[in-house]
């Protein structure tokens, strides 16, 4: 399974903080993102209408990267700490 986490505004809009996706549905981050846009009717708009960063196993990634069973993938808006 791949653990998917959402944070901040994104988590609020999707109404979900985390979910599990089977690895065969999400062999890389692009595939996972595609899967999520089809997960619920309104998710496509929410995920594609705003800047959305991603981290794999708690490290920010910019491009598509391969996933393996047990990975943690997070999606979140640009950060606003400090």
């Amino acid at each position, binding site marked *: 399974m791949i653990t998917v986490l959402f944070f*901040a*505004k994104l988590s609020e809009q999707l109404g979900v903080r985390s979910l599990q996706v089977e690895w065969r549905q999400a062999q890389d981050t692009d595939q996972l993102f595609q899967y999520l846009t089809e997960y619920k009717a309104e998710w496509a708009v929410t995920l594609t209408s705003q800047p959305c960063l991603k981290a794999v196993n708690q490290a920010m990634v910019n491009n598509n990267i391969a996933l393996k069973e047990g990975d943690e993938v997070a999606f979140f808006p640009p950060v606003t*700490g400090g």
Partner: protein
Amino acid sequence: MISVQEQDFNQQVEYERLRCQSSIGAIVTFTGLVRDINDGHTVSDLSLEHYPGMTEKCLVDIVEKAKVRWNIIASTVIHRVGHLTINDQIVFVGIASQHRGDAFAACEFIMDYLKTEAPFWKKETMEGGETKWVDARESDQKTLSKWAL
């Protein structure tokens, strides 16, 4: 020392922790506070969310990057999460070095990267009670260009 915490921190305690060695000639501290006005609207308070685990890794990584570039004898990064109100302390970065140039540069570098890379998100409560997620500033991204090698 790196800490992500709900409780407040004390400037004097953190300063004295940094002033730990007789080879230290310069201590620079940065403290970020909750302002009453942001992007033109009045803020009554703030809630800070973060990504536990990734946040700490990210802060460690930023401090390590700074240590490669500058001579740092001691460093502290504290970032609060949870509920905060006007004038509350949000973040502390303190750097102790032999010379001031290193301490200034490392402290500002860490803040600039923290602002754009560390997974924290602020949600403001405005005067009327309405809440709003703070938008990332483009200027914070641009600021990073000054650290290009």
